[in-house]
């Protein structure tokens, strides 16, 4: 078992609300670890609309998802949060001595006084194409992500998709695979031009195949794939022999393990009060798009407000009996010291 990380707060989700929670908690001397299933901060702002403009962040007439993320990272820098990317929190349970134990799918274990769920629309997970019978091959012949490249050595691999993941894995796996076929619905790619060029060179050199079409069925037995049935763009069907298939259709949001943590849920959202944004379990908070309360608006600015009020209650839990003096960052020398500006 890995070493246990002991901390004041674990924030689940590194989207804008999770990041701003680091700021509000930091002002009250509460140290945070932030866990996110993506490989970088920003949440939906990073994954869904990094380049798209947002017009309703107060005082920023227009900002892109990527800019908002980088500004928040700059703002929370003084509080030195520890990020755990590519991790999904799988389990949360109460500790007898108070606080919670959290476990991630990467085996990291936290003991934390409080948990702040800022998981937005849930965790981003690979989209699973609804090909009939695909479940029977998942994790034996069909993989939605590559955890260990070695497991694919010597295989006849069919990669489906036209984005960066599809192209990157085509190039990475081609040297160790017995054969690689890339299948995409059109002869255009939304991937790095350099990767596309390299792929086309491999095809020309006869080192791999590129085919146009979409998978409609799978053949094989006992979880081992022998071929994928493809509908070509001329509507002609053909089979691609393969014993491993990697479909890359982007990510989708699923509520995920949150549903199993014993919290009250309402239509896949977590009900909270509007004073502390605490869930049905004391010490577990929910802020941002994942919570619900009368009048809830799924706006980033609402999540920021929720983070500020949540932090007040977390302070009280951490410092029982201590009075929290309300201070402004414009005038408080102690807050300015924490921010490193005085």
């Amino acid at each position: 078992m890995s070493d246990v990380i002991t901390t004041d707060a674990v924030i689940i989700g590194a989207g804008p609300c999770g990041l701003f929670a680091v700021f509000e908690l930091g002002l009250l001397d509460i140290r945070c670890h932030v866990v996110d299933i993506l490989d970088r901060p920003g949440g939906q702002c990073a994954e869904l609309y990094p380049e798209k403009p947002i017009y309703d962040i107060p005082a920023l007439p227009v900002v892109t998802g990527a800019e908002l993320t980088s500004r928040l990272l700059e703002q929370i820098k003084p509080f030195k949060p520890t990020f755990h990317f590519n991790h999904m929190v799988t389990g949360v349970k109460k500790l007898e001595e108070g606080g919670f134990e959290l476990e991630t799918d990467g085996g990291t274990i936290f003991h934390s006084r409080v948990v702040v769920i800022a998981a937005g629309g849930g965790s981003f997970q690979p989209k699973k194409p609804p090909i009939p019978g695909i479940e029977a091959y998942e994790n034996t012949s069909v993989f939605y992500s590559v955890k260990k490249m070695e497991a694919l050595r010597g295989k006849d691999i069919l990669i489906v998709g036209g984005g960066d993941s599809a192209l990157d894995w085509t190039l990475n796996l081609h040297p160790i695979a017995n054969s690689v076929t890339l299948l995409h619905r059109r002869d255009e790619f939304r991937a790095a031009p350099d990767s596309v060029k390299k792929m086309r060179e491999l095809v020309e050199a006869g080192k791999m195949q590129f085919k146009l079409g979409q998978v409609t069925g799978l053949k094989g037995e006992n979880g081992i794939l022998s071929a994928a049935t493809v509908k070509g763009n001329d509507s002609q069907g053909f089979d691609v022999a393969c014993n491993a298939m990697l479909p890359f259709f982007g990510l989708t949001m699923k509520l995920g393990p949150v549903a199993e943590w014993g919290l009250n849920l309402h239509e896949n959202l977590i009900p909270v009060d509007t004073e502390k944004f605490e869930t049905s379990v004391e010490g577990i908070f929910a802020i941002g798009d994942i919570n619900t309360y009368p009048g809830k608006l799924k706006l980033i600015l609402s999540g920021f407000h929720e983070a500020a009020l949540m932090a007040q209650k977390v302070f009280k839990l951490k410092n029982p009996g201590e009075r929290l003096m309300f201070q402004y960052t414009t005038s408080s020398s102690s807050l300015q010291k924490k921010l490193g500006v005085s």
Partner: protein
Amino acid sequence: MAKITFIQHNGTEQTVEGLPGMSVMETAVKNMVPGIDADCGGACACATCHVYVEPEWVEKTGARNPMEEDMLDFAFDVRDNSRLSCQIKVSDVLDGLRVKVPEKQF
């Protein structure tokens, strides 16, 4: 006002009123039409509002835009009449529009 009919995979039909200027996706979500997930809320960034425009309406709804074409790479079972419903604007011309909802947006 434009009437829009959503046809589910099992053949169930639901006709709702669309307001000119709104997208077909927004119209679906507002009326709780099943099968239009719209994860990204209309930013053309998720391909979970995929519909098949009935053949007689393909011309009036027009061609897919380049961004939409890119996003359709992330949809399943893309056909010639595939559109992302967040990219179809409701207008009087589309009064009577019929679109099919895929079995799953995945």
